[in-house]
């Protein structure tokens, strides 16, 4: 149909820091959607947190209107994608909503890991890929080499790739024209049965859940009764429209178009990413492919810090859950930390993001405990318990054996890193399934690995060992019997349950030493020596000591300025308040996060 000829649905994909967000900003600016003055830097990353970390977590879709040199007006739907392995599924669904992708490659850096990882995701969705060389204004830019690399490594023809500088606004016109020329127009059937893909959703206080969808076939109008095929829920459409990027109601969305749908939906988990929308009265028979129910892979405890109210934390978690289908929580208690919540996440980054949002957006002080996966504990009486909090592990004599989740990890790396990455995987108890050459220089390793080895810092280690070129995807395969043990931490001989963790026996010593060393750095001196011990059961496997403090005195107290000295003491007392008291030992809040990150080189 004619109108679809003038639509282009695409994403911008890039390795981190290659300038994706800046380029998106420039496109928005060029097409006159937002004036330069109103633009915050990096328009599409709408959370402060994302802007700060330079990664996109939550997607935002924008509709641009472009007057092409061919005399026609085009609608561009720019669908932004998140940039981390924790959110690979979301990325794949966003890409599935597009016909093409603009691949941004930094002309000073060349092709990198995520460039490839993203290209493969895009190829999986049969997208047309339009390479673009960015940062062309920098003296260190080497466009010809980069083009060669794109052709060699990715196998894309890059001879016509626009040379742009998103920062300086160079080459943007050329890029816009190429989008028109190279990215295919959608070709759905507007008269067919409604088939739309949910690629994102968010919660709005007034409208309820806003679904972001791509219509493949048919059309959806205000007042229609829609059915979400996987969750099998039905809603009446209260509003449909386009994202400009703020919602603009249009009353209808047709095949090929991208927009939003509201239907008084209360939770984002009711409108899951990847689900297919159809009409209840005239449903399509087949769902769109690729739907996965997201599962929490990593759990940790989140507790109100000293002086923070339990209710405030609960309210905030509820608000976050409404907006994040992948996040879940339930109440739990800890001897050391009191009342709190056990929370489930997609991965470690997802966890860090939620915690940071609690701190920044909700201004809460929270303590997080060591992340854990879910263990399957088979007891001697034959019953099975699923344990995601180490403190709940039954007594050793009641346990027949423990099973841990195993994932299939697909790792893509340049071939020169095969040796070091195999070593890393082996160290993380990985079993190599097979290895394949994707190109003469790119290798994909397929491993089976315990999830608890992946969640800590595997991704960071992979990145650092491959100078950023490695990429990772993983999915759960099964539970497997494993020799894991509970590692406890004792401060001044008293067990602090919030530090307990479940680790493989072969790792317990190293981990115990690491935790003791870290805590030694963080726990302040007391008036007595504080022994820090790591133990398995009764057996102490690592020990450090915080020395007793020696000097803390105001030597000079003359001239009658008592107020200043008093302030100093008050400050000291305040500092003490921010500590968590365990028996006689005071532990700063940051101790809990500091022991989370396991650094191999230590």
């Amino acid at each position, binding site marked *: 149909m004619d109108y679809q000829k003038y639509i282009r649905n695409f994403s911008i994909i890039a390795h981190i820091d290659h300038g994706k967000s800046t380029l998106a900003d420039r496109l928005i600016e060029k097409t006159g959607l937002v004036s330069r003055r109103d633009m915050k830097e990096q328009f599409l990353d709408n959370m402060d947190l994302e802007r700060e970390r330079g990664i996109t977590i939550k997607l935002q879709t924008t509709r641009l209107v472009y007057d092409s040199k061919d005399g026609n007006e085009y609608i561009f739907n720019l669908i932004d994608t998140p940039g981390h392995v924790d959110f690979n599924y979301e990325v794949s669904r966003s890409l599935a909503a597009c016909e093409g992708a603009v691949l941004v490659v930094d002309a000073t850096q060349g092709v990198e890991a995520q460039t490839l990882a993203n290209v493969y995701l895009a190829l999986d969705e049969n997208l047309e890929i339009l390479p673009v060389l960015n940062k062309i204004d920098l003296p260190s830019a080497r466009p010809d080499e980069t083009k060669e690399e794109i052709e060699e490594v990715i196998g894309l023809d890059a001879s016509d790739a626009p040379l742009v500088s998103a920062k300086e606004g160079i080459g943007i016109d050329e890029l816009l024209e190429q989008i028109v020329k190279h990215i295919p127009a959608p070709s759905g059937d507007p008269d067919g049965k409604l088939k739309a893909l949910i690629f994102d959703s968010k919660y709005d206080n007034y409208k309820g859940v806003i679904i972001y969808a791509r219509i493949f076939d048919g059309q959806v109008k205000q007042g229609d009764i829609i059915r979400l095929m996987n969750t099998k829920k039905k809603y009446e459409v209260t509003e449909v429209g386009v994202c400009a990027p703020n919602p603009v109601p249009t009353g209808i969305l047709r095949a090929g178009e991208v927009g939003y749908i509201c239907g008084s939906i209360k939770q984002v988990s009711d409108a899951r990413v990847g689900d297919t929308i159809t009409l209840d009265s005239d449903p399509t028979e087949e769902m769109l492919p690729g739907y996965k129910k997201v599962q929490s892979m990593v759990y940790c405890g989140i507790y109100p810090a000293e002086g923070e109210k339990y209710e405030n934390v609960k309210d905030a978690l509820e608000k976050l859950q409404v907006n994040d289908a992948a996040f879940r929580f339930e109440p739990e208690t800890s001897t050391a930390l009191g009342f709190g919540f056990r929370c489930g996440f997609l991965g470690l980054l997802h966890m860090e993001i939620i915690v940071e949002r609690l701190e920044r957006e909700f201004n809460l002080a929270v303590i997080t405990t060591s992340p854990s996966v879910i263990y399957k504990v088979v007891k001697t009486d034959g019953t099975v318990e699923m344990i995601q909090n180490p403190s709940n592990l039954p007594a050793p004599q009641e346990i027949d054996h423990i099973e841990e989740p195993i994932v299939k990890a697909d790792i893509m790396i340049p071939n020169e890193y095969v040796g070091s990455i195999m070593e890393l995987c082996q160290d993380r108890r990985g079993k190599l399934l097979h290895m394949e050459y994707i190109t003469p220089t790119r290798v994909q390793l397929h491993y089976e690995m315990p999830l608890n080895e992946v969640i800590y810092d595997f991704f960071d280690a992979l990145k650092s060992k491959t100078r950023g070129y490695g990429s990772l995807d993983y999915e759960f395969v099964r539970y497997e019997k494993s020799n894991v043990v509970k590692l406890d931490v004792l401060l001044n001989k008293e067990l602090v349950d919030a530090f307990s963790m479940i680790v493989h026996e072969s790792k317990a010593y190293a981990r115990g030493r690491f935790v003791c060393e870290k805590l030694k750095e963080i726990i302040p001196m007391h008036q007595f020596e504080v022994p820090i011990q790591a133990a398995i059961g009764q057996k102490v496997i690592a020990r450090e000591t915080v020395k007793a403090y020696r*000097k803390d005195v*105001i030597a000079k107290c003359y*001239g009658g300025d008592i107020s200043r000295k008093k302030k100093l003491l008050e400050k000291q007392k305040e500092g003490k308040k921010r500590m968590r008291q365990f028996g006689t030992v005071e532990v700063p809040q940051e101790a809990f996060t500091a022991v989370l990150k396991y650094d191999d080189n230590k």
Partner: protein
Amino acid sequence: MRKAGIYIHIPFCLRKCPYCDFYSIAAGDGSLRSRFVKALIKEIETAGKKYGKNSDSPMTADTIYFGGGTPSLLEPEQIRAVLGAVRDSFALAKDAEISLECNPATADEEKLKDLRRAGVNRLSIGGQSFDDEVLKTLERLHSARDNIRTVELGRKAGFDNISLDLMFAIPGQTEEKWEETLKQALSLNPQHISFYSLEFMEGTPFTRRMEKGLITETDAEADRRMYERGLEILAEAGFSQYEISNAARGREYICRHNMKYWSLEEYLGFGPSAHSYVTGEQGRGLRFCNAADVAAYIEAMERGESAIEDFCQNSLKDDASEYVFTGLRKNRGIDLRDFRKKFRSGIWDFYGKDVKEEFEEFVRCGFADETENNIKLTVKGMNISNRIMALFV
């Protein structure tokens, strides 16, 4: 009788020492100093109307302390004039202690004699060290030789109550050098010694240099060894420590003025940046201080205005916490009966069970002593006194 100490801040220095954060400016020309002295006299007279001879509740000044800055930079006649103003406005106790801080770089025989004649009866000499290299590090404008000479001249001028200020834990100062300094100081037979560990105060050049890595702070272990060794040497020489950083050769040489700061007693401060503490309504303390600005101070006085910048009405809790944390600086600690009298409650009723338990944990570990009527810190406790005092603020 209502007794009070009088502190007089002389905010001039030949050169600012790089570790010092007391308020002072360059000595400048004589005319600024004489305008300053006039302003000072005016402030004393004004305060005299409120607290002095003819007020409702007159204070008798039983200590006067010239601090700085460098009070010995003023001419003895100027000191005499200021003391005269105090005498005109306040009743002066017959045995009043009148101290003056003296920098060895500014003292000569004539001056010391004149100061003594003006009524100053206690000389506090800022010797700091008897090691010329250490003095150089501290950028002092005098030598060890000057220190010795000043003590001798002071005695010759008739001062029979001489105190020496000494510092330790100075970058580059070994433990041996510190012992040597202390022994040399003792060989001069002073009546009193102040000895304090160098503190890196915020905003001082020393602190900036430390942050840049140009000088290193003495590590806590060595610092405390110097402190503890110092106490031993002082004790061997017949000195009794009476406060964290002070020792005297017998009770009669304890600095009565400074003791007021640590005993919640009244004092009036005159001059820029000077602090006062007076007992106000319902017996609650009132703290106030002048702005740290000589020019503004002089102008305010000349216009007949006040130079008070900060004013704080203490609550009962403020008074109690100040009483306890300053009181714990003294070796004799706090008389709990006195606490009860002042605050109409036993100390542990006042602070509660948790504070009592935490304090007693310190007692168990040997940092403090507690008897029925007294609490005090041990030397071990003084080393970490902030931790213990923080319980009470």
